[in-house]
């Protein structure tokens, strides 16, 4: 029997807005190597604010979506471990803190278009 509190951090600057790049499918590398540190792609915006993502040999056109239901990014608040004193079985409940809010995402759901990297020379 637990009650776990979810709260915003004490000061508003501790809860920034993050973003999501939403891709259909998953990103893979050719060799099975860890992804940490790897380059993903270039993100451009057209003058009309259409996002364009170039990943490897593909170009993806997307759109900015204002999320109908924003996400809260929640993490366990290690500093708030409390033992509820009324509980005889010493229930320690760890509370959650909202680390960030995500209200917008870049949604790429159109099929990626291949980029021809080498312009074939006429023989």
């Amino acid at each position: 029997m637990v009650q776990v509190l979810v709260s915003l951090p004490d000061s508003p600057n501790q809860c920034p807005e993050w973003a999501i790049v939403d891709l259909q499918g998953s990103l893979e590398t050719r060799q099975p190597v860890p992804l940490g540190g790897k380059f993903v792609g270039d993100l451009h915006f057209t003058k009309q604010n259409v996002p364009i993502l170039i990943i490897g040999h593909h170009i993806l056109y997307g759109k900015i979506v204002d999320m109908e239901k924003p996400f809260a990014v929640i993490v366990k608040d290690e500093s708030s471990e409390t033992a509820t004193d009324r509980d005889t079985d010493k229930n320690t409940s760890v509370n959650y803190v909202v680390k960030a809010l995500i209200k917008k995402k870049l949604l790429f759901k159109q099929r990626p278009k291949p980029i021809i990297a080498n312009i074939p020379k006429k023989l």
Partner: protein
Amino acid sequence: MDCDQNERSLEDINTVLEYAKLELSDVKPTVQCIYFSQQLDNQSFKLLELDDTVLETLTNGEKVVIRGNTDDMAVLCTQTNTFEIKEAEISNSMLITPQLDIGEDVDDSGPQNTKVSKVISVMNNYYELRPCKPKVAKLKKLLEENMYSGKECEEDEQHQGHKYCFEDLLNIVQGSEVEIKESLKKLKACQIEGLWRVLDFDFLTQVLNHIIQLCEENDWLSTGIPLDECLETLGQLFPREVIAHVIDCYANEMKSGGGQGDHDPDDQPMQIDAKFFSLSEDKICQFFAELVLKNSGKFNLKEFLKVWEQTVPQGMRTSLSQLEGIALIDRNCMPEVIWYFPVEDLPEDVGERFNTLFKTREKWSLAEISPYIRDLTTLKVDVGGLLTKYARASMMNGIKVFSSRKPVT
């Protein structure tokens, strides 16, 4: 390709743009180079989809609590609402980027420049909030573990069960504070010495009978019950909290002053210290019906009506409408019978409720079944909606009746 995050040059970027057949003039000058963070970790946090009311509650600094056992499904509660928390898995990949400029945040003029943005996590799941009814059936069971029968009985064998204060209930019942308080009110629970108790029926009968007797002796049935005097007189026999509670359940507070409603806003309302209550005819008659039927099995309807009439305080009128949700009448048998059938004892789950109802009686008219499903309605689904979903309508003797859609178990 392992890239130092500062190494991506404008030259590289523009080459790619050229191959992609995009003109520099088509795009804004800032290019964001996206990299996976060195500390890419897909387990470091959870994504919780926020409902409007939850976001508002959080922003106002009010309490948002997740409640439940490890084996229960967890619920999230604000002060007033309850939501089921469900995990949603998606086939998309959500790249979580803390620092990403979007659309209008990106300047549309100036020299070409780059900015690095890091993906700290790739997520394929999140937690959804679905508004739900608080799971309060448990509350009734908890409070029935130790029903109050009077101070003298508290230490005896039947009263060794657990007793709960509000904080205890919050730890066990999956609902918001306001919803739990509403349920406690519906259960006619009473706070005695800080603990929430339901009065056992026999004890309640004693208390109520004393109050009614006092009313009859003092003609309070017409003038109203003066709360303080009543507490003073009966305070010898029962805890004051209990007396006040019973009066609150079975009587209405009389508003000070003369007529109802037409107050001149400039008039200072007269301050009256003494509170007066008038017994509610409907609630008292309902109570006596319960008293008569509770341990009686099937009662001859004609006889019941006579007995009932005689049992209620003088001057009060009984009416069949007071029996809604409390008793069922079978007019098809000879003689007609009535029996105790309280809605509070029926299952909370909608499917199970309908199953029990149809097991009890094959066909119900709208008037007969409504009192037994009204408590299941929500903002979105009313009695008609419930019947459409869970029952089958047909005509019998010119009246629309409802029966089960599927075989009754």
